[in-house]
Protein backbone atom coordinates (compact mmCIF):
# COMPACT_ATOMS: atom_id res chain seq x y z
CA UNK A 1 0.00 0.00 0.00
CA UNK A 2 1.46 3.30 -1.05
CA UNK A 3 -0.22 6.62 -1.91
CA UNK A 4 0.95 6.52 -5.56
CA UNK A 5 -0.91 3.25 -6.16
CA UNK A 6 -4.70 3.73 -6.02
CA UNK A 7 -6.53 1.61 -3.45
CA UNK A 8 -10.23 1.00 -2.79
CA UNK A 9 -11.73 3.94 -0.84
CA UNK A 10 -13.04 1.74 1.89
CA UNK A 11 -9.62 0.26 2.56
CA UNK A 12 -7.86 3.63 2.92
CA UNK A 13 -10.70 4.92 5.09
CA UNK A 14 -10.47 1.90 7.37
CA UNK A 15 -6.71 2.27 7.57
CA UNK A 16 -6.95 5.96 8.50
CA UNK A 17 -9.59 5.14 11.09
CA UNK A 18 -7.27 2.54 12.61
CA UNK A 19 -4.42 5.04 12.89
CA UNK A 20 -6.73 7.63 14.47
CA UNK A 21 -7.95 5.03 17.00
CA UNK A 22 -4.34 4.25 17.82
CA UNK A 23 -3.57 7.86 18.65
CA UNK A 24 -6.68 8.12 20.81
CA UNK A 25 -5.44 5.01 22.66
CA UNK A 26 -2.07 6.72 23.15
CA UNK A 27 -3.49 9.99 24.40
CA UNK A 28 -6.36 8.71 26.54
CA UNK A 29 -4.56 7.78 29.81
CA UNK A 30 -2.55 10.99 29.81
CA UNK A 31 -5.55 13.20 29.09
CA UNK A 32 -7.51 11.50 31.85
CA UNK A 33 -4.70 12.01 34.36
CA UNK A 34 -4.45 15.68 33.41
CA UNK A 35 -8.19 16.38 33.52
CA UNK A 36 -8.77 14.81 36.94
CA UNK A 37 -6.08 17.01 38.46
CA UNK A 38 -8.78 19.70 38.43
CA UNK A 39 -11.57 17.62 39.97
CA UNK A 40 -12.86 19.08 43.24
CA UNK A 41 -13.15 15.67 44.91
CA UNK A 42 -11.07 13.41 47.15
CA UNK A 43 -10.78 10.76 44.44
CA UNK A 44 -9.45 10.98 40.89
CA UNK A 45 -12.59 9.44 39.43
CA UNK A 46 -16.10 10.31 38.35
CA UNK A 47 -18.43 11.96 39.27
CA UNK A 48 -17.07 15.34 38.30
CA UNK A 49 -17.45 17.63 41.32
CA UNK A 50 -16.43 20.87 39.69
CA UNK A 51 -13.26 22.64 38.67
CA UNK A 52 -10.57 23.54 41.21
CA UNK A 53 -6.97 24.69 41.38
CA UNK A 54 -6.87 23.26 44.90
CA UNK A 55 -4.67 20.26 44.08
CA UNK A 56 -1.97 22.68 42.98
CA UNK A 57 -2.29 25.61 45.40
CA UNK A 58 -4.56 24.36 48.21
CA UNK A 59 -3.17 25.09 51.68
CA UNK A 60 -5.56 23.39 54.08
CA UNK A 61 -6.68 19.87 54.72
CA UNK A 62 -8.23 17.96 53.10
CA UNK A 63 -7.10 19.70 49.92
CA UNK A 64 -3.36 20.28 50.14
CA UNK A 65 -1.89 21.25 46.78
CA UNK A 66 1.42 20.14 45.30
CA UNK A 67 3.12 23.40 46.12
CA UNK A 68 2.37 23.01 49.83
CA UNK A 69 2.98 19.29 50.16
CA UNK A 70 6.46 19.05 51.71
CA UNK A 71 7.22 15.33 51.14
CA UNK A 72 6.38 15.59 47.43
CA UNK A 73 8.47 18.73 47.00
CA UNK A 74 11.37 17.07 48.76
CA UNK A 75 11.02 13.99 46.55
CA UNK A 76 11.10 16.22 43.44
CA UNK A 77 14.31 17.78 44.77
CA UNK A 78 15.84 14.35 45.41
CA UNK A 79 14.92 13.17 41.91
CA UNK A 80 16.40 16.29 40.32
CA UNK A 81 19.63 15.87 42.30
CA UNK A 82 19.96 12.21 41.30
CA UNK A 83 19.14 13.01 37.69
CA UNK A 84 21.77 15.77 37.45
CA UNK A 85 24.46 13.50 38.94
CA UNK A 86 23.52 10.61 36.63
CA UNK A 87 23.50 12.90 33.58
CA UNK A 88 26.91 14.41 34.32
CA UNK A 89 28.45 10.99 34.90
CA UNK A 90 26.80 9.46 31.82
CA UNK A 91 27.75 12.27 29.46
CA UNK A 92 31.35 12.24 30.75
CA UNK A 93 31.78 8.49 30.39
CA UNK A 94 29.77 8.50 27.15
CA UNK A 95 32.10 11.08 25.62
CA UNK A 96 35.16 9.11 26.64
CA UNK A 97 33.67 5.87 25.26
CA UNK A 98 32.69 7.52 21.99
CA UNK A 99 36.27 8.69 21.42
CA UNK A 100 37.62 5.30 22.45
CA UNK A 101 35.50 3.34 19.95
CA UNK A 102 35.81 5.92 17.18
CA UNK A 103 39.51 6.83 17.32
CA UNK A 104 41.31 3.74 18.53
CA UNK A 105 41.75 0.21 17.28
CA UNK A 106 42.88 -2.28 19.88
CA UNK A 107 42.58 -6.01 20.53
CA UNK A 108 39.32 -6.98 22.21
CA UNK A 109 37.52 -3.88 20.98
CA UNK A 110 34.63 -5.82 19.44
CA UNK A 111 34.00 -7.78 22.63
CA UNK A 112 34.21 -4.62 24.72
CA UNK A 113 31.63 -3.00 22.44
CA UNK A 114 29.23 -5.89 22.99
CA UNK A 115 29.78 -5.62 26.76
CA UNK A 116 29.06 -1.92 26.52
CA UNK A 117 25.68 -2.72 24.93
CA UNK A 118 24.75 -5.41 27.46
CA UNK A 119 23.16 -3.10 30.09
CA UNK A 120 20.39 -2.45 27.55
CA UNK A 121 19.31 -6.10 27.56
CA UNK A 122 19.56 -6.71 31.30
CA UNK A 123 16.23 -6.22 33.11
CA UNK A 124 16.43 -3.13 35.33
CA UNK A 125 15.43 -5.00 38.45
CA UNK A 126 18.29 -7.50 37.95
CA UNK A 127 20.77 -4.63 37.54
CA UNK A 128 19.44 -3.23 40.79
CA UNK A 129 19.74 -6.41 42.85
CA UNK A 130 23.17 -7.33 41.49
CA UNK A 131 24.55 -3.93 42.47
CA UNK A 132 22.80 -4.20 45.84
CA UNK A 133 24.33 -7.63 46.51
CA UNK A 134 27.83 -6.58 45.45
CA UNK A 135 27.89 -3.29 47.34
CA UNK A 136 26.62 -4.96 50.51
CA UNK A 137 29.36 -7.54 50.23
CA UNK A 138 32.01 -4.81 50.03
CA UNK A 139 30.40 -2.86 52.86
CA UNK A 140 30.21 -5.97 55.07
CA UNK A 141 33.78 -6.86 54.20
CA UNK A 142 35.00 -3.41 55.14
CA UNK A 143 33.16 -3.66 58.44
CA UNK A 144 34.48 -7.14 59.25
CA UNK A 145 38.08 -6.28 58.43
CA UNK A 146 38.44 -2.73 59.71
CA UNK A 147 35.16 -1.91 61.48
CA UNK A 148 34.85 0.72 58.80
CA UNK A 149 31.25 1.58 57.96
CA UNK A 150 30.92 2.79 54.39
CA UNK A 151 27.55 4.55 54.43
CA UNK A 152 27.63 5.12 50.65
CA UNK A 153 27.46 1.39 49.92
CA UNK A 154 24.24 0.87 51.86
CA UNK A 155 20.94 1.41 50.02
CA UNK A 156 20.63 5.15 49.43
CA UNK A 157 21.16 7.89 46.92
CA UNK A 158 24.76 6.96 46.01
CA UNK A 159 23.67 3.48 45.00
CA UNK A 160 20.62 4.84 43.17
CA UNK A 161 22.91 7.13 41.17
CA UNK A 162 25.34 4.30 40.37
CA UNK A 163 22.53 1.91 39.48
CA UNK A 164 20.88 4.33 37.05
CA UNK A 165 24.24 5.34 35.62
CA UNK A 166 25.08 1.70 34.91
CA UNK A 167 22.62 1.52 32.01
CA UNK A 168 22.08 5.18 31.08
CA UNK A 169 25.81 5.42 30.24
CA UNK A 170 25.20 3.02 27.34
CA UNK A 171 22.54 5.27 25.89
CA UNK A 172 24.63 8.44 26.19
CA UNK A 173 27.56 6.61 24.58
CA UNK A 174 25.40 5.62 21.61
CA UNK A 175 24.02 9.15 21.19
CA UNK A 176 27.45 10.82 21.29
CA UNK A 177 29.17 8.12 19.20
CA UNK A 178 26.53 8.51 16.46
CA UNK A 179 27.47 12.16 16.02
CA UNK A 180 31.21 11.60 16.30
CA UNK A 181 30.86 9.04 13.48
CA UNK A 182 29.69 11.82 11.16
CA UNK A 183 32.53 14.17 12.08
CA UNK A 184 34.89 15.10 9.25
CA UNK A 185 38.35 14.38 10.63
CA UNK A 186 40.08 16.62 8.12
CA UNK A 187 38.75 19.57 10.16
CA UNK A 188 40.79 18.36 13.11
CA UNK A 189 43.81 17.82 10.86
CA UNK A 190 43.47 21.38 9.60
CA UNK A 191 43.66 22.61 13.19
CA UNK A 192 46.78 20.52 13.72
CA UNK A 193 48.34 21.95 10.54
CA UNK A 194 47.63 25.43 11.82
CA UNK A 195 49.76 24.68 14.84
CA UNK A 196 47.24 23.51 17.43
CA UNK A 197 48.21 20.73 19.79
CA UNK A 198 46.06 17.60 19.70
CA UNK A 199 44.15 18.54 22.86
CA UNK A 200 43.54 22.10 21.64
CA UNK A 201 42.25 20.74 18.33
CA UNK A 202 39.81 18.43 20.10
CA UNK A 203 38.74 21.18 22.51
CA UNK A 204 38.20 23.91 19.91
CA UNK A 205 36.99 21.89 16.90
CA UNK A 206 35.61 18.47 17.85
CA UNK A 207 33.92 19.25 21.16
CA UNK A 208 31.88 22.22 19.79
CA UNK A 209 30.78 19.93 16.96
CA UNK A 210 29.68 17.32 19.51
CA UNK A 211 27.88 19.84 21.73
CA UNK A 212 24.34 19.19 20.39
CA UNK A 213 24.77 15.45 20.92
CA UNK A 214 26.14 16.04 24.42
CA UNK A 215 23.20 18.26 25.32
CA UNK A 216 20.84 15.70 23.80
CA UNK A 217 22.48 12.91 25.78
CA UNK A 218 22.27 15.02 28.94
CA UNK A 219 18.54 15.64 28.51
CA UNK A 220 17.78 12.02 27.66
CA UNK A 221 19.83 10.86 30.67
CA UNK A 222 18.06 13.37 32.91
CA UNK A 223 14.60 12.22 31.81
CA UNK A 224 15.46 8.52 32.01
CA UNK A 225 16.86 8.96 35.48
CA UNK A 226 13.89 11.05 36.62
CA UNK A 227 11.46 8.38 35.40
CA UNK A 228 13.42 5.33 36.40
CA UNK A 229 11.55 2.97 38.64
CA UNK A 230 12.84 -0.61 38.56
CA UNK A 231 16.52 -0.10 39.35
CA UNK A 232 15.76 2.66 41.84
CA UNK A 233 13.22 0.51 43.70
CA UNK A 234 15.88 -2.03 44.64
CA UNK A 235 18.53 0.49 45.71
CA UNK A 236 16.53 3.21 47.44
CA UNK A 237 17.17 4.09 51.08
CA UNK A 238 15.31 6.59 53.23
CA UNK A 239 15.34 9.50 50.73
CA UNK A 240 12.79 8.47 48.13
CA UNK A 241 12.94 9.99 44.64
CA UNK A 242 9.63 11.13 43.16
CA UNK A 243 8.64 7.93 41.33
CA UNK A 244 9.09 5.86 44.49
CA UNK A 245 7.28 8.42 46.66
CA UNK A 246 4.36 8.48 44.22
CA UNK A 247 4.29 4.69 44.04
CA UNK A 248 4.03 4.43 47.83
CA UNK A 249 1.11 6.87 47.85
CA UNK A 250 -0.60 5.17 44.94
CA UNK A 251 -0.56 1.87 46.84
CA UNK A 252 -2.38 3.50 49.75
CA UNK A 253 -5.04 4.97 47.49
CA UNK A 254 -4.84 8.02 45.34
CA UNK A 255 -6.05 11.59 45.63
CA UNK A 256 -6.05 14.10 42.75
CA UNK A 257 -2.82 15.39 44.29
CA UNK A 258 -1.06 12.65 42.32
CA UNK A 259 -2.79 13.84 39.15
CA UNK A 260 -1.50 17.33 39.80
CA UNK A 261 2.06 16.04 40.28
CA UNK A 262 1.71 13.95 37.10
CA UNK A 263 0.49 16.94 35.11
CA UNK A 264 3.48 18.97 36.28
CA UNK A 265 5.75 16.06 35.28
CA UNK A 266 4.19 15.96 31.82
CA UNK A 267 4.66 19.69 31.36
CA UNK A 268 8.23 19.52 32.62
CA UNK A 269 9.28 16.66 30.41
CA UNK A 270 7.59 18.08 27.30
CA UNK A 271 9.43 21.34 27.93
CA UNK A 272 12.75 19.51 28.20
CA UNK A 273 11.99 17.50 25.05
CA UNK A 274 11.23 20.72 23.17
CA UNK A 275 14.49 22.28 24.36
CA UNK A 276 16.34 19.23 23.12
CA UNK A 277 14.64 19.27 19.72
CA UNK A 278 15.47 22.97 19.37
CA UNK A 279 19.14 22.26 20.09
CA UNK A 280 19.19 19.32 17.67
CA UNK A 281 17.82 21.56 14.90
CA UNK A 282 20.60 24.09 15.41
CA UNK A 283 23.28 21.42 15.47
Amino acid at each position, binding site marked *: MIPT*IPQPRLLTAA*YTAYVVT*FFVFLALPLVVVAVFAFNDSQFPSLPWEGFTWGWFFGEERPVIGVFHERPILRAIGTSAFVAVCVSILSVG*VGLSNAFLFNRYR*FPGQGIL*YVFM*LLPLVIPGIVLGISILV*FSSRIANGAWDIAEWDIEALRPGLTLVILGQFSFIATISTLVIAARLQKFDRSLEEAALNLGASRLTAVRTVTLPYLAPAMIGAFVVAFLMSFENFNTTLMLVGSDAPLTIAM*FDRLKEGSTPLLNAV*SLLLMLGSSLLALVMIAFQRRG
Partner: protein
Amino acid sequence: MKAEARIGLILLLTPLLLWLSLLIVIPHIDMFLVSLRERVGVGEYRISPANYLTFLTEPLYLRTFARTAIMAMLATLITLLIAFPVSYYIAKMARGRTRSALFLLCLVPFWVSELVRTFGWMILLRETGLISTLLQWAGLADQPVEMLYNDAAIMVGLVYTSMLFMVVPLVTTLESLPDEVIEAGYDLGGTNVSVMREIVIPHATPGIVSGCIVVFMLSLGNYLTPTMLGGKDSLWFTELIYSQFIVRFNWELGAAFGFLLLLLSSLIVWGMLRLTGHTLERTMG
Protein backbone atom coordinates in the same frame (compact mmCIF):
# COMPACT_ATOMS: atom_id res chain seq x y z
CA MET B 1 53.49 10.16 19.18
CA LYS B 2 53.23 6.46 19.77
CA ALA B 3 53.58 6.91 23.52
CA GLU B 4 51.04 9.74 23.47
CA ALA B 5 48.51 7.56 21.69
CA ARG B 6 49.07 4.83 24.23
CA ILE B 7 48.46 7.19 27.14
CA GLY B 8 45.32 8.47 25.43
CA LEU B 9 44.08 4.93 24.96
CA ILE B 10 44.67 4.07 28.60
CA LEU B 11 42.96 7.27 29.78
CA LEU B 12 39.89 6.57 27.66
CA LEU B 13 39.81 2.90 28.51
CA THR B 14 39.82 3.47 32.28
CA PRO B 15 36.28 4.86 32.74
CA LEU B 16 34.83 2.21 30.42
CA LEU B 17 36.54 -0.65 32.24
CA LEU B 18 35.67 0.72 35.68
CA TRP B 19 32.02 1.11 34.69
CA LEU B 20 31.67 -2.30 33.08
CA SER B 21 33.61 -4.25 35.69
CA LEU B 22 32.36 -2.61 38.89
CA LEU B 23 28.74 -2.03 37.93
CA ILE B 24 27.96 -4.78 35.43
CA VAL B 25 30.28 -7.80 35.32
CA ILE B 26 31.42 -8.29 38.92
CA PRO B 27 27.99 -7.56 40.48
CA HIS B 28 26.40 -10.18 38.24
CA ILE B 29 29.06 -12.77 39.05
CA ASP B 30 28.59 -11.94 42.71
CA MET B 31 24.83 -12.30 42.41
CA PHE B 32 25.35 -15.74 40.86
CA LEU B 33 27.69 -16.74 43.71
CA VAL B 34 25.16 -15.60 46.31
CA SER B 35 22.46 -17.60 44.56
CA LEU B 36 24.59 -20.73 45.05
CA ARG B 37 24.77 -20.23 48.80
CA GLU B 38 22.74 -22.06 51.36
CA ARG B 39 22.44 -20.83 54.91
CA VAL B 40 23.31 -23.59 57.39
CA GLY B 41 23.65 -21.54 60.55
CA VAL B 42 24.04 -17.97 61.77
CA GLY B 43 26.47 -16.39 59.34
CA GLU B 44 27.46 -19.81 58.02
CA TYR B 45 26.96 -20.75 54.41
CA ARG B 46 27.89 -23.57 52.10
CA ILE B 47 27.76 -23.92 48.37
CA SER B 48 24.76 -25.83 47.14
CA PRO B 49 22.10 -25.64 44.44
CA ALA B 50 19.43 -25.50 47.16
CA ASN B 51 17.90 -22.23 45.96
CA TYR B 52 17.47 -23.55 42.45
CA LEU B 53 15.96 -26.75 43.83
CA THR B 54 13.50 -24.67 45.83
CA PHE B 55 12.54 -22.93 42.63
CA LEU B 56 12.03 -26.22 40.81
CA THR B 57 10.03 -27.91 43.56
CA GLU B 58 7.71 -25.05 44.49
CA PRO B 59 4.85 -24.95 41.97
CA LEU B 60 4.06 -21.29 42.70
CA TYR B 61 7.54 -20.14 41.66
CA LEU B 62 7.65 -22.31 38.56
CA ARG B 63 4.17 -21.32 37.49
CA THR B 64 4.85 -17.62 37.98
CA PHE B 65 8.05 -17.93 35.96
CA ALA B 66 6.30 -19.64 33.05
CA ARG B 67 3.34 -17.28 33.23
CA THR B 68 5.58 -14.21 33.16
CA ALA B 69 7.53 -15.55 30.18
CA ILE B 70 4.41 -16.43 28.19
CA MET B 71 2.61 -13.18 28.96
CA ALA B 72 5.70 -11.15 28.06
CA MET B 73 5.88 -12.95 24.71
CA LEU B 74 2.19 -12.38 24.12
CA ALA B 75 2.60 -8.68 24.99
CA THR B 76 5.48 -8.46 22.49
CA LEU B 77 3.40 -10.06 19.76
CA ILE B 78 0.38 -7.82 20.39
CA THR B 79 2.60 -4.73 20.47
CA LEU B 80 4.11 -5.73 17.13
CA LEU B 81 0.70 -6.36 15.55
CA ILE B 82 -0.66 -3.00 16.73
CA ALA B 83 2.49 -1.02 15.97
CA PHE B 84 3.28 -2.33 12.49
CA PRO B 85 0.35 -0.77 10.59
CA VAL B 86 0.84 2.50 12.45
CA SER B 87 4.57 2.58 11.72
CA TYR B 88 3.91 1.76 8.09
CA TYR B 89 1.41 4.59 7.92
CA ILE B 90 3.90 7.04 9.41
CA ALA B 91 6.80 5.89 7.24
CA LYS B 92 5.08 5.30 3.91
CA MET B 93 1.59 6.85 3.79
CA ALA B 94 2.08 10.17 5.57
CA ARG B 95 4.09 12.92 3.91
CA GLY B 96 6.28 15.82 5.04
CA ARG B 97 5.01 17.69 8.07
CA THR B 98 2.26 15.20 8.86
CA ARG B 99 4.86 12.46 9.08
CA SER B 100 7.10 14.26 11.56
CA ALA B 101 4.09 15.42 13.56
CA LEU B 102 2.70 11.88 13.82
CA PHE B 103 6.10 10.49 14.75
CA LEU B 104 6.54 13.11 17.46
CA LEU B 105 3.03 12.37 18.72
CA CYS B 106 4.08 8.74 19.15
CA LEU B 107 7.02 9.81 21.29
CA VAL B 108 5.22 12.25 23.57
CA PRO B 109 3.60 9.77 25.99
CA PHE B 110 6.98 8.22 26.68
CA TRP B 111 8.56 11.37 27.94
CA VAL B 112 6.23 10.88 30.88
CA SER B 113 6.99 8.51 33.71
CA GLU B 114 5.69 4.94 33.46
CA LEU B 115 4.03 5.53 36.80
CA VAL B 116 1.87 8.30 35.33
CA ARG B 117 0.86 6.15 32.37
CA THR B 118 -0.10 3.27 34.64
CA PHE B 119 -2.01 5.66 36.88
CA GLY B 120 -3.93 6.83 33.80
CA TRP B 121 -5.03 3.29 33.04
CA MET B 122 -6.07 2.80 36.65
CA ILE B 123 -8.35 5.82 36.41
CA LEU B 124 -9.81 4.54 33.15
CA LEU B 125 -10.34 0.91 34.11
CA ARG B 126 -11.34 0.94 37.75
CA GLU B 127 -14.85 0.30 39.03
CA THR B 128 -15.61 3.98 39.46
CA GLY B 129 -13.57 4.80 36.39
CA LEU B 130 -14.32 6.39 33.09
CA ILE B 131 -15.00 3.31 30.97
CA SER B 132 -17.23 1.70 33.55
CA THR B 133 -19.28 4.90 33.89
CA LEU B 134 -19.46 5.26 30.13
CA LEU B 135 -20.76 1.71 29.75
CA GLN B 136 -23.47 2.31 32.34
CA TRP B 137 -24.43 5.57 30.73
CA ALA B 138 -24.74 3.86 27.36
CA GLY B 139 -26.90 1.19 28.93
CA LEU B 140 -24.46 -1.62 28.18
CA ALA B 141 -23.99 -2.39 31.87
CA ASP B 142 -26.42 -1.99 34.74
CA GLN B 143 -23.82 -1.83 37.49
CA PRO B 144 -20.19 -0.70 37.88
CA VAL B 145 -17.79 -2.95 35.99
CA GLU B 146 -14.39 -3.70 37.51
CA MET B 147 -11.86 -3.98 34.72
CA LEU B 148 -8.78 -3.55 36.86
CA TYR B 149 -6.85 -6.28 38.68
CA ASN B 150 -6.79 -8.99 36.03
CA ASP B 151 -4.47 -10.28 33.32
CA ALA B 152 -6.17 -8.33 30.54
CA ALA B 153 -5.47 -5.08 32.39
CA ILE B 154 -1.80 -6.08 32.76
CA MET B 155 -1.67 -6.79 29.04
CA VAL B 156 -3.13 -3.39 28.15
CA GLY B 157 -0.62 -1.70 30.45
CA LEU B 158 2.35 -3.64 29.07
CA VAL B 159 1.43 -3.03 25.44
CA TYR B 160 0.86 0.65 26.08
CA THR B 161 4.11 1.08 28.00
CA SER B 162 6.31 -0.59 25.39
CA MET B 163 4.66 0.84 22.26
CA LEU B 164 7.38 3.44 21.63
CA PHE B 165 10.16 0.86 21.60
CA MET B 166 8.40 -0.95 18.77
CA VAL B 167 7.31 2.07 16.74
CA VAL B 168 10.70 3.81 16.59
CA PRO B 169 12.77 0.95 15.11
CA LEU B 170 9.92 0.00 12.76
CA VAL B 171 9.53 3.53 11.40
CA THR B 172 13.30 3.84 10.99
CA THR B 173 13.67 0.64 8.95
CA LEU B 174 10.50 1.22 6.93
CA GLU B 175 11.63 4.74 6.02
CA SER B 176 14.79 3.31 4.50
CA LEU B 177 12.74 1.26 2.02
CA PRO B 178 12.44 3.32 -1.21
CA ASP B 179 8.90 3.92 -2.44
CA GLU B 180 9.98 2.84 -5.93
CA VAL B 181 10.67 -0.68 -4.74
CA ILE B 182 7.10 -1.00 -3.43
CA GLU B 183 5.73 0.49 -6.66
CA ALA B 184 7.82 -1.95 -8.67
CA GLY B 185 6.22 -4.76 -6.68
CA TYR B 186 2.77 -3.58 -7.73
CA ASP B 187 3.90 -3.04 -11.35
CA LEU B 188 5.04 -6.63 -11.47
CA GLY B 189 1.53 -7.70 -10.57
CA GLY B 190 1.83 -8.00 -6.80
CA THR B 191 -1.21 -7.64 -4.57
CA ASN B 192 -1.35 -5.81 -1.25
CA VAL B 193 -0.70 -9.06 0.57
CA SER B 194 2.15 -10.32 -1.60
CA VAL B 195 3.94 -6.94 -1.67
CA MET B 196 3.66 -6.82 2.11
CA ARG B 197 4.90 -10.37 2.55
CA GLU B 198 7.68 -10.41 -0.02
CA ILE B 199 9.00 -6.84 0.02
CA VAL B 200 8.00 -4.83 3.07
CA ILE B 201 8.26 -7.39 5.85
CA PRO B 202 11.64 -8.85 4.77
CA HIS B 203 13.03 -5.34 4.57
CA ALA B 204 11.63 -4.43 8.00
CA THR B 205 13.00 -7.55 9.72
CA PRO B 206 15.92 -5.80 11.48
CA GLY B 207 13.48 -3.28 12.94
CA ILE B 208 11.04 -6.00 13.95
CA VAL B 209 13.82 -7.95 15.68
CA SER B 210 15.22 -5.02 17.63
CA GLY B 211 11.74 -3.81 18.56
CA CYS B 212 10.71 -7.28 19.75
CA ILE B 213 13.89 -7.73 21.80
CA VAL B 214 13.48 -4.47 23.64
CA VAL B 215 9.73 -4.88 24.20
CA PHE B 216 10.09 -8.44 25.43
CA MET B 217 12.83 -7.47 27.82
CA LEU B 218 10.92 -4.49 29.17
CA SER B 219 7.76 -6.55 29.66
CA LEU B 220 9.60 -9.39 31.35
CA GLY B 221 11.38 -7.05 33.74
CA ASN B 222 8.39 -4.84 34.40
CA TYR B 223 7.38 -4.46 38.03
CA LEU B 224 5.12 -1.45 38.13
CA THR B 225 2.44 -2.47 35.62
CA PRO B 226 1.73 -5.97 36.99
CA THR B 227 1.76 -4.67 40.57
CA MET B 228 -0.61 -1.79 39.95
CA LEU B 229 -2.93 -3.28 37.31
CA GLY B 230 -2.80 -6.96 38.21
CA GLY B 231 -4.88 -8.72 40.82
CA LYS B 232 -4.07 -11.07 43.65
CA ASP B 233 -3.69 -14.06 41.32
CA SER B 234 -1.67 -12.33 38.65
CA LEU B 235 1.79 -12.53 40.17
CA TRP B 236 4.73 -11.41 38.06
CA PHE B 237 8.20 -12.89 38.48
CA THR B 238 9.75 -9.53 39.38
CA GLU B 239 7.31 -9.31 42.30
CA LEU B 240 8.78 -12.56 43.64
CA ILE B 241 12.29 -11.12 43.38
CA TYR B 242 11.21 -7.98 45.17
CA SER B 243 9.49 -9.86 47.97
CA GLN B 244 12.47 -12.17 48.53
CA PHE B 245 14.86 -9.25 48.68
CA ILE B 246 12.97 -6.53 50.48
CA VAL B 247 10.16 -8.24 52.39
CA ARG B 248 11.58 -11.65 53.39
CA PHE B 249 15.21 -10.66 53.31
CA ASN B 250 16.09 -14.02 51.72
CA TRP B 251 18.79 -12.70 49.40
CA GLU B 252 20.02 -16.14 48.38
CA LEU B 253 16.70 -17.17 46.88
CA GLY B 254 16.13 -13.67 45.50
CA ALA B 255 19.52 -13.77 43.75
CA ALA B 256 18.65 -17.17 42.26
CA PHE B 257 15.37 -15.71 40.94
CA GLY B 258 17.24 -12.71 39.53
CA PHE B 259 19.70 -14.97 37.79
CA LEU B 260 16.90 -17.08 36.32
CA LEU B 261 15.18 -13.95 34.98
CA LEU B 262 18.46 -12.81 33.44
CA LEU B 263 19.01 -16.25 31.94
CA LEU B 264 15.54 -16.34 30.42
CA SER B 265 15.79 -12.88 28.90
CA SER B 266 19.30 -13.57 27.54
CA LEU B 267 18.17 -16.89 26.05
CA ILE B 268 15.22 -15.32 24.27
CA VAL B 269 17.28 -12.37 23.00
CA TRP B 270 20.01 -14.74 21.79
CA GLY B 271 17.43 -17.02 20.18
CA MET B 272 15.80 -14.16 18.35
CA LEU B 273 19.14 -12.89 17.05
CA ARG B 274 20.16 -16.40 16.06
CA LEU B 275 16.89 -17.09 14.29
CA THR B 276 17.19 -14.00 12.13
CA GLY B 277 20.97 -14.01 11.72
CA HIS B 278 21.53 -10.60 13.30
CA THR B 279 24.10 -9.50 15.83
CA LEU B 280 23.64 -7.44 18.97
CA GLU B 281 25.95 -4.72 17.62
CA ARG B 282 23.85 -4.21 14.51
CA THR B 283 20.51 -4.47 16.28
CA MET B 284 21.21 -2.18 19.23
CA GLY B 285 24.08 0.03 18.14
